[in-house]
């Protein structure tokens, strides 16, 4: 039985297979509409989420399956003090697969060691968010036609931004990838990503504090939100939240085929005016997220449709 806890759980070849399956689902949705008939996904969301939870639920419904779960720890037995280990043993009796989001880092890994059904990490604290990574990879591959030979700018909260950590982990495995890390010094990428992932894989990167300096060189600009929920100190959050705001003026500095991605939700780091720019693909990204989660559910349940 397989789980998806970290983006590194799939090899590059397996990722290619998964993305090809997602593309086939995009092109032939009818072929897959009953693929999971009689199957159930449990969505165990211990912290608030709109798109990730709904994306999993939409994915399972599109495959003809059913959905059960909870959307905050207050409405589950966690409020009564139940451990992750006990919850997953119980859920294993109800569902065929589960997606878990948890504020504590490593919670889905703990669940996977006790579970008798596949566990998907739907985000654990500031740590990993592998299905967002799959979504990002599918968006880049579908719209750029490749996952190699890219210069990728990552902008905003690179310290707590789990989507950024997961995306770097996944992309360093492709050839000729360069990163430009754009953040205030307080929200720099964690040292382990810099030392072990980037330097450890000899991937070129530079760290800058001004978005304008980086924009002309980028193939992809990956924007992130400064996340209020990751700060213990509100004053620190208020000081940093408006560090980078992408608007039409800044977009004039970028190349004509640079793509703007964002894991969403955005607050104000991308002006609404940018939405009309054809290079802004963050809402298309949401649609790709459903296809890739459908492909993931089929893969982990070992369901093959000819």
């Amino acid at each position, binding site marked *: 039985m397989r789980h998806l806890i970290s983006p590194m759980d799939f090899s590059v070849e397996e990722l290619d297979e998964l993305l090809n399956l997602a593309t086939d689902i995009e092109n032939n949705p009818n072929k897959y509409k009953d693929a999971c008939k009689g199957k159930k996904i449990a969505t165990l969301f211990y912290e608030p989420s709109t798109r990730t939870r709904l994306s999993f639920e939409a994915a399972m419904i599109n495959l003809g399956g059913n959905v059960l779960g909870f959307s905050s720890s207050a409405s589950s037995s966690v409020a009564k003090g139940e451990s*992750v280990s006990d919850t997953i043993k119980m859920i294993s009796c109800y569902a065929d697969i589960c997606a878990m989001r948890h504020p*504590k*880092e490593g*919670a889905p*890994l*703990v669940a996977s060691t006790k579970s008798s059904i596949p566990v998907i990490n739907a985000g654990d604290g500031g740590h990993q968010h592998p299905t967002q990574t799959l979504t990002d990879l599918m968006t880049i591959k579908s719209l750029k036609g490749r996952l190699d030979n890219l210069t990728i700018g990552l902008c905003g909260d690179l310290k707590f931004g789990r989507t950024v950590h997961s995306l770097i982990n996944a992309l360093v495995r492709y050839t000729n990838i360069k990163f430009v890390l754009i953040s205030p010094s307080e929200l720099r990428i964690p040292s*382990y990503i810099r030392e*072990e992932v980037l330097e450890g894989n000899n991937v070129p990167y530079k760290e800058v504090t001004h978005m304008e300096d980086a924009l002309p060189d980028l193939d992809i600009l990956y924007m992130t939100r400064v996340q209020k929920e990751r700060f213990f100190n509100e004053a620190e959050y208020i000081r940093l939240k408006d560090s980078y705001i992408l608007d039409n003026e800044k977009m004039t500095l970028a190349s004509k085929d640079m793509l703007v991605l964002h894991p969403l939700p955005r607050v104000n780091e991308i002006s609404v005016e940018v939405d009309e720019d054809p290079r802004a693909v963050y809402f298309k990204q949401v649609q790709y997220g459903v296809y890739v989660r459908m492909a993931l559910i089929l893969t982990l349940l070992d369901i093959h449709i000819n």
Partner: protein
Amino acid sequence: MLNVGSLKEGFVLDHIQAGKSMDIYNYLGLDKLDCQVAIIKNAKSNKMGRKDIIKIECSLDVINLDILGYIDHNITVNIIHDRSIVEKKQLMLPKTIKNVLKCKNPRCITSIEQELDQIFILTDKTKEIYRCRYCEEKYSNL
């Protein structure tokens, strides 16, 4: 010279940095074992000036010495069987450390999950870096 009787079976941990023997006593969980333990502090040493020594009379399978490699790989471990040294164990950094170190990341699942093993994995041998298995946070003594 202080005289402590020789062991029939067990371990002699020699060349412990002076003053560190009680840390090792605790790391190895010797307080929980029902066996004879002699702790010699500040013994004279040609090599180190002063050193600590721990002698443990116990069967050879009750103590996991792997953690010593993490604490100080200069410690000499003599394994005693039938009153003679049968092996001088070479200490190496253990690949995993279980239930000895505690993750300090307040966002880690180990901070709330009941009876979860604290597991650290060696991720960089040269820099001697251990990371929590669950949250991947680097362990720091500070």
